[in-house]
């Protein structure tokens, strides 16, 4: 039986991944700050923990089951709107949760005796690494940092993967997106579908995972035509938000 540790497991992509792993017979330890939402998950171990807490990494490493072979870093927050209008403490929190915490947790796990020798560290980044993300400067920063960390960790001899999802049909997207019309929401990928693609690619040993054809097309556009992609995103994301969503 495979042992899996998942942060941000109570909602969105983390929840979909936790349930998919459980249904596949894995032994899952689910970490989230939302105790109520965690309690609705059955058949897995849970740990209520806010990643901003000073002892979060230590507690998570202690809660991690021995011989864990997959770590899914899904916990993440965002803040959208004009960079200068988003409160400074919110920018700081985005970097704390999305970048500092996964590095600290990885360090604590590597220093512990909980991981299987060939454990895979998987980090949920963002498609913005390929496209840019005007209107979410600190979020884009945190996710580019995470993608870099995943590359370095792999080169240091620890299997690691970065996942670059596009917009998903989750509360996270609904909270931070400029447009939540029915049409826009319907166009987002269901988190269950993304989870299935991610687990398939992880099983194949992929180091870069972009779930879905549409996200892959956006990533290619961002790489080949950074100028037009950036301008299009500025219009669709940045100019569409007047007041910050935090």
């Amino acid at each position: 039986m495979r042992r899996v540790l998942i942060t941000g497991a109570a909602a969105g992509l983390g929840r979909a991944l936790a349930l998919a792993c459980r249904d596949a017979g894995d032994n899952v330890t689910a970490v989230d700050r939302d105790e109520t939402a965690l309690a609705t998950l059955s058949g897995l171990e849970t740990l209520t923990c806010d990643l901003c807490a000073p002892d979060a990494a230590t507690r998570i490493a202690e809660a991690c089951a021995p011989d864990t072979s997959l770590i899914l870093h899904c916990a993440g927050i965002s803040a959208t709107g004009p960079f200068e209008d988003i409160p400074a403490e919110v920018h700081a929190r985005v970097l704390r949760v999305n970048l500092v915490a996964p590095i600290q947790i990885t360090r604590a796990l590597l220093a512990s005796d909980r991981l299987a020798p060939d454990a895979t560290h998987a980090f949920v980044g963002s498609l913005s690494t390929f496209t840019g993300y005007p209107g979410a400067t600190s979020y884009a920063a945190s996710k580019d940092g995470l993608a870099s960390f995943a590359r370095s960790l792999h080169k240091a001899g620890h299997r690691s993967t970065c996942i670059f999802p596009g917009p998903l049909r989750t509360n996270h997207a609904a909270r931070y997106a400029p447009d939540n019309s029915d049409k826009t929401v319907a166009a987002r990928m269901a988190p269950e579908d993304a989870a299935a693609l991610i687990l398939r690619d992880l099983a194949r040993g992929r180091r870069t995972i972009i779930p879905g054809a549409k996200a892959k097309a956006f990533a290619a556009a961002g790489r080949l035509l950074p100028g037009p992609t950036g301008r299009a995103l500025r219009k669709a994301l940045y100019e569409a938000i007047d007041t910050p969503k935090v």
Partner: protein
Amino acid sequence: MSRRVFITGGSAGLGRALVDHYADAGWSVVTQGRRAADQIAPPLPQHVTYQQHDFARDVGLPAMVTDAPLDLAILNAGAGHVGPLTALTDDQIAELVHVNTTAPLLQAQALYPTLAAAKGTLVLIGSTTARGAHPDFASYAATKAALAGAARALRLEWQDRVRVVIVHPGPTATEMHDRAGLPQSGIRRLFTPAPIVARAVASAAASGRDRRLGMTFLLRHAPAALRASGANA
């Protein structure tokens, strides 16, 4: 009236070389750094305004850069770390991200009104390690990759108001490497002297274009690096 520039980390290394560069060019220079003013050697040029400041604690800015139009801000202060990931404590990881990523972003935010008032330029100092994979300084590289992601997003946001530029220096001959734990070795004689890197930063700031000071730059300036390290040896 002379143009105004604000430089962080101006008491040593690349920041100090930038202070000298802009002071020589007749700019009005405001800078901050961790050391006490009387610990700076050689002393800063006469007309430079210096504030001792450690923004591991807070991101405070001198009032003179937040209350009058500012033509240029170069957020250069940063810290390094060399060694395996497990050698860092939680606090060291948090501080590295704070000093290299969070603090410059919050300073950029605080400087926005005065930079916009002058239609000025914001320069972030990244690193060539922002690309690629770096097992010996995974956390440091992540902080600089994050800064690159921020520059890309912010340039699109501020496009008509403040120019955003990021320069990625390669290995530069500064004390940061000693503080970061990089051992002394012959290869360090090739690290580019800070004044040469400062000129490249200034030229990127003037042109408004990002610059990556990669292997070509390192090799082109290798003779000067060897001369400078020979003179210091």
